[in-house]
């Protein structure tokens, strides 16, 4: 059974369909890049799949179940347990330490803080950022912040990892480290969907899907 299946996914803003009739699927451990220019609807597509923006039409199936069904609390729980997010800005909580940022989803899921911190330490070690674990997120460099964000996305061992231009704000050396970190998700068996306008980054994924004016063209 595919981890992700998007059917006829459409999002309309005003009188314009930003994303139109997208159909895609991802198997466990599979990775794909959605490649497209700015404004092509990449982020909107990712948000619909990530249960952040409700599709105007179509549906998203996670492990065969409708991701948008149920109430807000159920959808939040689905995001917590099944989806990991990495965004362009990292989106860490600035006043918390890197370690606390990573531990947050795990703590929320298990309700056990000590265990969550232990898991955070492990994953920060695996991603090579354990040296900054105690530092406030706001003081981290862009590359460090992005790797900490990946650690946070992976800490609950998600079935689906969504990454939105994760290398856009970092230099090529840090970009390579970030892509290496993302590949860890695949090794853990998660399906990875990455959106980017950088063909070189897209080439690191198993499959490339091109998005133009909201439509998948390949």
């Amino acid at each position, binding site marked *: 059974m595919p981890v992700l299946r998007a059917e006829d996914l459409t999002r309309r803003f005003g009188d314009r369909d930003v994303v139109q009739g997208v159909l895609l699927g991802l198997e466990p451990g599979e990775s794909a890049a959605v490649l497209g220019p700015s404004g092509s609807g990449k*982020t909107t597509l990712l948000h619909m799949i990530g249960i952040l923006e409700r599709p105007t039409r179509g549906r998203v199936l996670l492990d065969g179940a409708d991701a948008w069904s149920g109430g*807000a609390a159920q959808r939040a*729980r689905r995001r*917590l347990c099944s989806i990991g*997010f990495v965004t362009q*800005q990292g989106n860490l909580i600035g006043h918390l330490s890197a370690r606390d940022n990573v531990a947050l989803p795990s703590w929320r899921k298990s309700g056990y803080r000590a265990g969550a911190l232990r898991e955070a330490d492990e994953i920060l070690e695996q991603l090579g950022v354990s040296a900054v674990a105690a530092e406030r997120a706001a003081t981290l460099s862009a590359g460090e912040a992005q790797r900490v964000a990946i650690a946070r996305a992976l800490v609950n061992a998600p079935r689906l990892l969504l990454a*939105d231009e994760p290398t856009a704000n970092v230099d090529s050396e840090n970009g390579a480290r970030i892509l290496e970190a993302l590949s860890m998700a695949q090794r853990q068996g998660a399906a990875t969907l990455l959106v980017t306008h950088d063909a070189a980054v897209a080439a690191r994924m198993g499959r490339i899907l091109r998005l133009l004016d909201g439509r998948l063209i390949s």
Partner: protein
Amino acid sequence: MAAAVGFQIPNSANRAGYESELLREAVSFGNGDVRVRPRETSIFADADALASRLSRYPGVRTALPVLLLPGAIRGKGALNGAPVLGVNTTSPFHPFRLIAGELLSSGDSQGVLVGRSLAERLPVSVGDRVVLHVLLPPTPKMLHEDNARRYTLVVRGLVGGTFGAQESVFMDREFFAQDLGMPRAASMVFVYLDNHDRARSLAQLIAAEMPQVQARAWIDDSAYLSSSMQASRALGAISEAMVVAAVVIPVLALLFVHVLNRRRDIGILAALGFGPAEIFFVFLTQALWVGLLGSVLGCGIGWVLIRHFQAHPIFEWEGFVIRPLLVWGSFVRPVLVVLSATVLAGTYPALRAARLDPAPVFRGLV
């Protein structure tokens, strides 16, 4: 928040102190919790038996017979009209407070206690002689006799008491009643209880069991006293309402701005999988912490102010002193009011936080 609690605690304590002092003055050093008067006649012929019966009701500390007659008193100046009360002044409760001198001994035929305001007008002080004229009650026995009695007495003490004692003259009832030929008579019996709140129910019970008497609780017998208590409570409620407004408006604004400033963090939490209810409670808990911290600081401020007002009362006159009453309610009620107001004020910002759309955060728009 701390200022609101710190203001309201001494305010509540002073108000409680005022009500307590008012009751002490008007009831404990006044006319008692329940005032028992004859229904048909002007005098109880055997008030001692009635007092003895009344003192057997549960919660009664003292039942004090009082013989009240109109009179006039002359000291060093002009004659002044004054009510004359015959009471057992050595009773643990009596309708005055001794300010200077000493109480009358049982059977004292030479001494008198004079209300302080009256003494200033006469003018007399402890040890001076006064001439007292007492108008006798119109009983059949007195019809053919002189209807007034004249005494020359020594002022043994000066007494106070806001509810009448300042302007009254007190004689020993045992001597007074005996001298008038009515050794066990009294115009009324003042009943003093250990709990002022039970006065009304006891008055009803007495009236039901003794149809020949009229029994009235202090709250029904003294319109001034009951109005004063009501006014004090109304002022307390107004003060609480002002505190609620003083807390709700700034806390609401503060937490609302806090939520606006934390939209990015809230969006991240929502996107990570925190549900609306959890985000709501995170922010409501923050409001509660603000309230708790403010309450703790406010309790400290309130405690210091209470100590100050205990040393320097806000009102002091003739023994009527308003000191803050240190009871749990003086702290608990303001804290609960402020905490409730804080939670109320925190609810709207917390709701706004819970309903925040995380998508704009992840688009980098926030």
